[in-house]
């Protein structure tokens, strides 16, 4: 038996034109205004609104600046509810209201231009300012002339729908940076510069008759160190004190000790006219340390890592009461309420279906997105007790992650502190019997010279360089500690749908031509099956007339046999349809046969993300598991990718996923969980490193340690190798800084450390570390093909 394939493609290619507004292909040519083509009614409306307000310039700054809009009805009535509005508004008085919106679509200069001209559309809007990187719009408007709902509707009309969610990420983000770090750096830098200038005469030698200058400069230096120690360096003393009370020797303890000793010795030397003191070393130390801290604090303004179900769910729900709908805040939704859920809305609570297209009386779980017509549901469980949200009651969400592995820095600084104190007291005891003053000089000099400045800087500089490498590859880490966690991973757990498979199902291709009656037969056979491939075929064939089926059989992992009317339909694998097994191909094919006549096949290409082949190569260095909430229809295909069936787990509930990760951790696994949806949220939180995969970083992604753009999924093995490289770089730079410390210590233990030596050694070691880590990270990234 030989399969006959038809070369004719089913799709008739029409000449495609790009939509003037959003740039998508126009499928039809129905929407034309002034010789400009639009892909949908939504885009056309936006153009009309803009040209009516003489805003046509919007299109002249960039080509196709808009976002496509499939949905055209407005649903912002809930903003009239005072409780909801109060949550969103920044400030209000009798005249004006100020509100900040997060608008994900802000991406080009056209957006900026248009959004800052809102008062041309409505004069009641006084002021609008865009913060481009944060994708925020700050609006001040006269609330007696225009309501909050109308403001949002204007934004919607011009194609910039704000993302309004209960968990208000805007306010949270603005609250974060209040530690005055920049001001502290400014003060430290200011004093460092002045002190250096004033110290030069001492280093170059001051003649005897200029001795009055020496004291003058000395006291000025002491004056400059005061703000450095008590304002800029305060944080180190506080951190060291907290560490001591918890009985841990963190890196802050030797740092604080170094700062304190430098300051006290400088004051004593200047006061007793015995020397010049170490004022410039002190100021330089604090300055460089703070710069290291600043580098460490990289933040992504437009990405939120802390999202939970509250930002996934809508702000308000429409309920039906006395035959009319009204919007209520989600928190007020109670058991017994009748909700109205429309197209593309999310079901916020477990509910029973009252009417709609789907099966009436069925329980619908929270988290699903309604597609198609509107449905009415009766709430059976309040939002915070639904099947999905009860995950958040798990202890994984309430406790701090204390099982984190100790970072290299923490491990090292413990021993470092002990060795440092031993050498310091040793040299004190050695000199004490012969020369008390020399003993104290040696003691303080050891603490000064061994102050782990370079050690404290190596981690932040390496990690922030690594972070920007990841950033370039569309992989966004929450903070620099994540790199180190990633290097320690030995177990990887994948979610299936949305994570290793792509979200859209459009990659279906047919070989062969199907007549309309044939399409009907195939559709009618496939509509009975819940298999994802059958569903995709039905979706592809569209709303066909459904024929009644006489006989129907679905053979697991093989396909469907059906008798419809006088026709016998076979849909499935080559083995079932054609009688022989085809050599395994990268693409999945579903063969068709009606009345023993082969009709070609449907081809599903790229169902898995690019680079899934690389995943299996990561074994056995990493243990790899798959956790899927779906049925095991794809077990056979997946077992090829995952090299065997042992790691595959199907039918997993969100709670089971969490428990599975926990059990791996009990077996000593350091688990990286890669997931995408709310049902992975528990496992992501429980794991040592949770990565959320998303096709659009502005879209919802569950709370995680890192967010990965789907485009860079194939680079995962490279990311893991690169994270290990960065750890090696940190270790090596640690040895460099130790070498400098040993050189300094040979001077220090003799008690003869000159201020000049300290003043040269400290910046020199810092410069070496910074340049080494930056260069080494750059080369490591190049080696892994990441830049």
């Amino acid at each position, binding site marked *: 038996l030989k399969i006959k394939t038809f070369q004719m493609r089913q799709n008739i290619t029409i000449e495609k034109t790009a939509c003037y507004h959003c740039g998508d292909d126009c499928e039809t040519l129905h929407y034309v205004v002034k010789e400009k083509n639009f892909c949908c009614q939504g885009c056309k409306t936006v153009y009309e609104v803009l040209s009516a307000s*003489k805003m*046509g*310039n919007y*299109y*002249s*700054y960039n080509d196709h600046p808009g976002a496509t809009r499939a949905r055209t009805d407005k649903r912002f009535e809930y903003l009239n509810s005072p409780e909801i509005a109060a949550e969103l508004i920044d400030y209000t008085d009798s005249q004006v209201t100020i509100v900040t919106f997060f608008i994900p679509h802000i991406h080009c*200069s056209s957006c*900026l*231009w248009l959004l*800052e001209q809102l008062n041309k559309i409505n004069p009641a809007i006084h002021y609008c*300012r*865009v*913060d*481009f*990187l*944060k994708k925020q719009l700050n609006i001040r408007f006269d609330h007696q002339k225009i309501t909050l709902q109308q403001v949002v509707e204007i934004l919607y009309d011009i194609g910039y729908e704000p993302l309004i969610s209960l968990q208000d990420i805007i306010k949270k983000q603005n609250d974060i940076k209040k530690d005055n770090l*920049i*001001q502290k750096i*400014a*003060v430290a830098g*200011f004093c460092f*510069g*002045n002190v250096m200038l*004033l110290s030069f005469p001492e280093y170059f030698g001051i003649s005897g008759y*200029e001795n009055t*200058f020496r004291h*003058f400069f000395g006291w*000025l230096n002491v004056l400059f160190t005061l703000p450095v120690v008590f304002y800029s360096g305060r944080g180190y003393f506080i951190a060291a004190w907290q560490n001591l009370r918890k009985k841990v020797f963190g890196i802050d303890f030797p740092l604080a000790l170094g700062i304190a000793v430098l300051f006290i010795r400088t004051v004593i030397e200047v006061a007793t006219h015995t020397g010049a003191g170490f004022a410039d070393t002190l100021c330089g130390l604090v300055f460089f340390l703070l710069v290291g801290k600043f580098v460490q604090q990289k933040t992504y303004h437009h990405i939120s890592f802390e999202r939970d179900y509250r930002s996934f769910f809508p702000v308000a729900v429409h309920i039906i009461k006395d035959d009319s709908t009204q919007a209520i805040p989600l928190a007020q939704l109670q058991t017994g309420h009748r909700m109205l859920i429309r197209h593309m809305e999310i079901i916020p609570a477990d509910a029973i279906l009252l009417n709609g297209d789907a099966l009436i009386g069925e329980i619908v779980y929270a988290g699903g997105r309604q597609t198609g017509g509107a449905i009415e549901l009766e709430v059976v469980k309040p939002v915070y007790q639904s099947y999905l949200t009860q995950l958040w009651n798990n202890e994984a969400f309430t406790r701090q992650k204390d099982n984190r592995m100790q970072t290299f820095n923490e491990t090292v600084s413990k021993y470092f502190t002990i060795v440092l104190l031993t050498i310091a007291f040793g040299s004190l005891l050695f000199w004490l019997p012969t020369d008390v003053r020399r003993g104290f000089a040696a003691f303080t000099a050891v603490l000064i010279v061994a102050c782990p400045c370079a050690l404290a800087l190596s981690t932040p500089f390496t990690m922030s360089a690594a972070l920007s490498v990841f950033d370039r590859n569309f992989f966004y880490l929450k903070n620099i500690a994540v790199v180190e966690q990633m290097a320690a991973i030995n177990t990887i757990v994948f979610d299936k749908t949305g994570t290793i498979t792509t979200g859209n199902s459009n990659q279906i291709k047919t070989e062969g031509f199907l007549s309309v009656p044939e399409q009907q037969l195939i559709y009618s056979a496939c509509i009975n099956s819940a298999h994802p491939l059958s569903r995709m075929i039905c979706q592809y064939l569209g709303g066909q007339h459904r024929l009644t089926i006489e006989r129907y059989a679905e053979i697991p992992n093989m396909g469907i046999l059906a008798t419809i009317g006088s026709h016998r339909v076979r849909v499935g694998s080559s083995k079932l349809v054609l009688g022989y097994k085809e050599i395994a191909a990268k693409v999945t094919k579903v063969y068709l046969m009606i009345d023993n006549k082969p009709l070609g096949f449907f081809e599903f290409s790229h169902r898995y993300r690019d680079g899934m082949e690389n995943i299996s190569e990561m074994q056995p260095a990493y243990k790899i598991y798959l956790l899927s909430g779906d049925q095991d229809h794809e077990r056979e295909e997946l077992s090829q990718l995952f090299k065997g069936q042992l790691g595959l787990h199907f039918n997993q509930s969100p709670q089971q996923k969490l428990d599975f990760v926990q059990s791996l951790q009990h077996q000593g696994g350091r688990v990286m969980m890669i997931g995408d949806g709310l049902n992975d949220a528990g496992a992501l939180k429980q794991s040592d490193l949770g990565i959320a995969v998303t096709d659009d970083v502005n879209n919802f992604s569950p709370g995680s340690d890192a967010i990965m753009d789907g485009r860079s999924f194939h680079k995962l093995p490279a990311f893991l190798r690169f994270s290990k490289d960065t750890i090696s770089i940190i270790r090596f730079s640690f040895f460099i800084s130790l070498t400098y410390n040993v050189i300094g210590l040979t001077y220090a233990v003799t008690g003869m450390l000159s201020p000049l030596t300290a003043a040269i050694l400290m910046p020199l070691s810092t410069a070496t570390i910074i340049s080494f880590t930056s260069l080494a990270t750059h080369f490591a990234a190049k080696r892994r093909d990441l830049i």
Partner: protein
Amino acid sequence: MNIIYFLIGCSILLALAFLAAFFWAQLSGQNDDLYTPAMRILLDDDAEPPADK
């Protein structure tokens, strides 16, 4: 050489003035958004849309 006292006093006062200016800029939020103004300056204020090509 006593002029040194005066000169150093002057230079420190001047430097303090700059430090104060930086603090003022920082606290009044002038450094909060360093990206958008650079784009804003490239946009015209009240230009009519150019004729379609």
